[in-house]
């Protein structure tokens, strides 16, 4: 079998696994939220309610997929695909193990940042094309939030890049053999995680879709599988940010030898996915201006300071 075929099979496998994880997260999230709220969550369909995912999928596939007559049809249809494509493209650069990964890109970090910027288009276009004031408000909020949080998301990553001396995610993981980067880069890690929360517009930063204010924000007018795409995109986003946190700050596939590298990667990734859900279960949504001022007045200066200090330390001690 030629090299090309192996690559194609690996791509398809990774895609399948990722989509399964994203769909499974629907169940995991509902179950974990219930567990943290002293409930049981879905436990009727199949063993432990595991078939709930299947039931949800069947339901959403058979829902009427309605396009409002007042909507801008082409953009309306294309918007939910953008978020999924952007997130799935980002997964291309993630090294799951030394051998499993789609592409070994020497500008992996930049590629991820570019792709996560693409995600903003989906929110904006969905909000705009719906031709609905709530959707538009959600889209505007989403774009402002994602653009401003992208700024220091990139800046917070630069500390890691300085320490590893490479934009390649594989090199970054290899550079963590001595010490995982979340210890020297604890500030960067916190900023990146918060920015990741805002990028995926997860609770508590789900301001673009704030139910209590904007019905469902930018996807108010969506139904059926288009709505499902937004949700799968959101869950893929969680998975992506968790995978990146794992790769950049927690040593990726590295770990003691009694478990294979892929298992280490998945354990770390799922720990962060659960943290995402725990944060959703705990924290209330901040006001919109609070979110923006936190971003620009606290996190951006902190990220710059972190970058400065890291650079100075690396230069001074020639690390």
């Amino acid at each position, binding site marked *: 079998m030629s090299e090309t075929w192996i690559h194609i099979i690996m791509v398809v496998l990774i895609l399948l696994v990722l989509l399964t994880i994203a769909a499974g997260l629907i169940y995991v999230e509902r179950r974990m939220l219930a567990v943290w709220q002293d*409930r049981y969550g879905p436990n009727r369909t199949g063993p432990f309610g595991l078939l709930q995912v299947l039931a949800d999928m069947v339901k959403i596939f058979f829902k009427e997929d309605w396009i409002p007559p007042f909507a801008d049809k082409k953009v309306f249809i294309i918007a939910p695909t953008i978020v999924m494509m952007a997130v799935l493209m980002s997964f291309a650069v993630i090294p799951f193990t030394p051998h499993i990964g789609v592409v070994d890109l020497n500008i992996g970090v930049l590629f991820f940042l570019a792709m996560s910027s693409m995600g903003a288009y989906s929110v904006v276009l969905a909000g705009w094309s719906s031709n609905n004031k709530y959707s538009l408000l959600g889209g505007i909020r989403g774009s402002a939030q994602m653009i401003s949080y992208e700024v220091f998301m990139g800046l917070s990553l630069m500390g890691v890049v300085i320490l590893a001396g490479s934009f390649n995610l594989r090199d970054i993981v290899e550079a963590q053999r001595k010490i995982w980067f979340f210890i020297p880069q604890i500030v960067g890690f916190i900023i990146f995680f918060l920015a990741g929360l805002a990028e995926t517009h997860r609770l508590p930063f789900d301001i673009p879709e704030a139910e209590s204010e904007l019905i469902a924000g930018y996807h108010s007018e969506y139904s059926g599988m288009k709505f499902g795409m937004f949700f799968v995109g959101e869950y893929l986003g969680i998975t992506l940010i968790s995978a990146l946190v794992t790769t950049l700050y927690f040593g990726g596939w590295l770990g003691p030898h009694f478990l294979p590298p892929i298992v280490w990667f998945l354990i770390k990734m799922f720990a962060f996915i659960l943290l995402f859900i725990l944060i959703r279960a705990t924290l209330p949504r901040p006001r919109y201006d609070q979110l923006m001022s936190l971003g620009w007045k606290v996190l951006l200066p902190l990220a710059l300071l972190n970058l400065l200090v890291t650079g100075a330390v690396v230069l001074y001690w020639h690390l």
Partner: protein
Amino acid sequence: MISHLRSLWLVFKHMFHKRETVQYPEEKPYLPPRWRGRIVLTRDPDGMERCVACYLCAAACPVDCISLQATEDENGRRYPEFFRINFSRCIFCGYCEDACPTYAIQLIPDFEMAEYDRQNLVYEKEHLLISGQGKYHGYNFYRVAGVDAGVKAKGAGEKEREPVDVRKLLP
């Protein structure tokens, strides 16, 4: 920031708390005896219908879900010709039970009345009547009432004096 982390920890600890959920179909909740559920029509200790078709329940009903028609039997005993409760309207407020002067209409602790067809929620008298006395035992309206309706002769009731003969002079 500290308080956020603390709340994260507190929520995390809820993982090990007891669940609040009652797994309903397997695990039934305790319903107190005075629970206001399905409405029934009871019978007196002699096995006759208690209802005297006074329309007070229908008048008290805030959603007008009770409809009935009074009639009399050959002894002059009043009873409902039909008695119909539309449970798709009923709000289980219990006003009918409060209004009833003869303990006939009562609410019992049964709420599992789901139906596939809305029309099946309209209960007729034969669905509402039960063979027992419900919550209030030993009461028979026609034994204490002043009328003769085939249950007892006039003046023969409990705590009831003989009727006064208005044509006699003696007190």
